[in-house]
């Protein structure tokens, strides 16, 4: 790897870690202040929202009530996003006169956005009206992220409270996450992005004159929309010429800012942050990439502050960072080494002062190899799923790392809120395993870990692999599942495995060659997203409720300290063990075979 590349990666990690503490401190304040006497700068708006909604902000909720409020809120979100898509043709702010979206695609996108997955079955600029993007997607980018944040805060309260039967108020936690954390950060980021060249307008798409006209041909269609074939069975083609280019525009900056900050990832345009209007410069790229991990990193510090021991937060952040950095230094060199197939064709793939070199298929010149591969790791470590390069065209190893990061359960930073609550569940498992091995009482942050918590933790850890492996297996046995595969051979298997890893862990990135916008995948992946979001959130809240009811056990000789580097290591091993044992056989059939084939052929 080049020195310049090393510098850019280091700068990224250092900036991220430096921002974790100030933002984490601020966030802890947001969640700990009582509504009365609160000095929040938007307090009057916040209170107005509660009053109009008939919500008593001081009412404490048991875990079941908290879960019901969350589910009810997300259910409403589903109906709104679904409805907006189904009726966008008759609704305003649709300058391109785009038609209504099919029921299966609308279902998939609505589920995708309420579950904070933001899998893009649709192609933004070709299917969604400005209104759908704003009222449907942008709003869910905020509130689905805020829902995850609320669940994390409830879990933290479970550790903090003693002999209590309540976890706080879902409406308050969710509203505050939106108003005080996501909204100001999004405003700030969207302002900077616009300055860099991200579009923000309600004007229709702009047509411009080309410097050189383009001749092209398309197959002729009959009235039923089928290709007309000649006597030899070849399609008739129509030869056409164009001297115009239509530039897709829209209110993009406001959506892109929150799509990054809320670990959502659903792009305004089809190719997401590879699009020059979505991510125009290396600086916009750096900031969008920083926004992906910013809140998940800061939450570690918030967690430490709220449980009264910041070392607990640093240990988790340290464990996450160690795994992240290691995997960055697997993916970047894999992409920098390039594709041996191209070397045999006499193509120059060496990095120099004149070019980035490496595997540039599906990558943008302004980002080169380092910023593309770094983004790929960061976006799959977090459950963001936005892309600035096409993962399907990555080298086998370069593409395997993002896939595996999702399969680890989205706990290496993970989604806002959801990443840390997932990691805390792994910490619970880690203290339990350590307790078994060395005969110590399993306890974490002063709370005894007993059979009930372990059962819930097991559910949380096992649901995503069940979705991923089960879904992949089913898809590959069905003709309809295999019909969508684009690339042949082992890579085609990887496309399906990647799609299920993404949906089954609420990430949302894709090996884009797979034609996923078909009824089968729209429906099946939609179900996977629902299960892996809510069947994890509800048991997490159950753990929180059970912990809150317990008394605090004093630290004794038998307590395993959880603020040490040793515990960080134990945590990493637990995460990697589960991830490796579950997925290595499947990965061997896809990226690993393809890697060997690629080396063997050339």
């Amino acid at each position, binding site marked *: 790897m080049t020195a*310049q590349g090393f*510098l850019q990666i280091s700068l990224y990690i250092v900036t991220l870690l430096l921002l974790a503490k100030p933002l984490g401190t601020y966030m802890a304040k947001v969640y700990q202040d009582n509504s009365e006497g609160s000095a929040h700068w938007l307090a009057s708006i916040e209170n107005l*929202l509660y009053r109009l*909604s008939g919500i008593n902000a001081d009412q404490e909720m048991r875990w079941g009530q908290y879960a019901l*409020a969350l589910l009810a809120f997300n*259910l*409403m979100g589903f109906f709104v996003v679904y409805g907006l898509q189904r009726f966008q043709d008759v609704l305003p702010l649709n300058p391109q006169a785009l038609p209504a979206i099919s029921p299966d695609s609308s279902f998939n996108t609505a589920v995708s956005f309420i579950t904070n997955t933001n899998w893009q079955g649709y192609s933004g600029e070709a299917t969604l009206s400005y209104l759908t993007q704003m009222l449907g997607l942008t*709003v869910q980018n905020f*509130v689905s992220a805020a829902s995850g944040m609320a669940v994390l805060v409830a879990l933290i309260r479970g550790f903090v409270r003693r002999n209590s039967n309540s976890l706080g108020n879902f409406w308050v936690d969710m509203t505050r996450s*939106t108003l005080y954390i996501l*909204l100001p950060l999004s405003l700030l980021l969207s*302002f900077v992005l616009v300055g*860099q060249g*991200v*579009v*923000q*307008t309600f004007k229709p798409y*702009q047509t*411009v*004159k*080309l*410097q050189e006209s*383009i001749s092209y041909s398309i197959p002729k269609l009959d009235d039923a929309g089928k290709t007309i074939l000649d006597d030899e069975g070849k399609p008739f083609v129509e030869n056409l010429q164009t001297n115009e*280019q239509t530039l*897709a525009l829209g209110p993009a*900056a*406001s*959506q892109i800012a*929150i799509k990054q900050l809320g670990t959502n990832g659903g792009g305004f345009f*089809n190719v997401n942050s*590879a*699009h*020059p*209007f979505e991510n*125009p*410069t*290396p*600086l916009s790229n*750096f900031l969008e990439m920083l926004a992906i991990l910013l809140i998940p990193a800061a939450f570690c510090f918030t967690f430490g502050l709220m449980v009264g021991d910041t070392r607990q937060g640093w240990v988790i952040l340290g464990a996450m960072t160690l795994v992240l950095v290691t995997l960055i230094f697997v993916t970047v060199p894999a992409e920098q080494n390039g594709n041996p*197939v*191209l070397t045999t064709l006499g*193509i120059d*793939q060496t990095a120099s002062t*004149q*070019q*980035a070199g490496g*595997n540039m*298929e599906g990558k*943008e*010149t302004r*980002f080169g190899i380092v*910023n593309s591969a770094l983004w790929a790791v960061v976006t799959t470590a977090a459950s963001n799923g936005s*892309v600035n*390069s*096409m993962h399907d*065209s990555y*080298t086998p190893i370069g593409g395997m790392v993002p896939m595996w990061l999702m399969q680890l359960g989205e706990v290496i930073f993970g989604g806002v809120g959801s990443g840390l609550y997932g990691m805390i569940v792994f910490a619970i498992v880690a203290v339990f395993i350590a307790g078994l091995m060395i005969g110590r009482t399993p306890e974490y942050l002063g709370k005894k870990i007993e059979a009930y918590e372990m059962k819930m933790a097991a559910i949380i850890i096992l649901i995503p692999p069940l979705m991923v492996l089960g879904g992949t297996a089913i898809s590959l046995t069905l003709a309809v599942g295999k019909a969508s595969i684009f690339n042949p051979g082992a890579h085609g298997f990887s496309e399906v495995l990647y799609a299920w890893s993404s949906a089954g862990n609420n990430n949302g990135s894709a090996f*884009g*060659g797979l034609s996923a916008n078909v009824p089968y995948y729209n429906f099946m992946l939609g179900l996977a997203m629902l299960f892996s979001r809510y069947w994890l959130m509800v048991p997490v809240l159950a753990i929180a409720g059970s912990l809150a009811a317990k008394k605090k056990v004093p630290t004794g000789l038998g307590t395993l300290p959880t603020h040490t580097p040793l515990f960080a290591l134990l945590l990493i091993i637990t995460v990697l063990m589960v991830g490796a044992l579950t997925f290595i056989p499947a990965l061997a059939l896809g990226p690993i075979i393809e890697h060997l084939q*690629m080396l063997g052929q050339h």
Partner: protein
Amino acid sequence: MTTYLKPALILLLLLTLVTGVIYPALVTVFAQTLFNFQANGSLLKNPQGQLIGSELIGQSFSDPHYFWGRPSATGPYPYNAAASSGSNLGPTNPALSAAISARIQALKTVDPDNKLPIPVDLITASGSGLDPHISLAAAEYQINRVAKMRKLDEEILRELVDAYTEDRQWFVFGEPRINVLKLNIALDQQAVNSK
């Protein structure tokens, strides 16, 4: 359940107003006032005032008089800015090596004497299909050809290319690159001026 559904719906609608209407409107007002050029797509005009592209979005060039940009995988024609797309071809897909061989052939046909190694970005499709840039190596590879076709001195052309070379942003971020559309517009402009 209605105890939850009613506040859920009202709160959602209110937050829709805040994050789906007020927030994007605020950003739009800010953008249109302070960054009017960027917010509307960084559009380029010719001296006659006609819109001829965006400085952020590439265009397709296949005439040997022009510098060529990255291959584009958008459909039904390259650089379709209303339907961005990458090729999504996997590294071992035979279709990838076939596409690349065809692109090598196209480059060799218009410039048979060129012995320089072909830079990778010149024969691989970009992620967006709209990439406006090429690497310095990809420009250098084409300088001799464009100079010959336009009967320009190679050194003068190299100076023009240098003038359109963008360094890493703040000397750190991203990769050095050349905006193909702006370079080609400048080439045409120079031809008009020298007549």
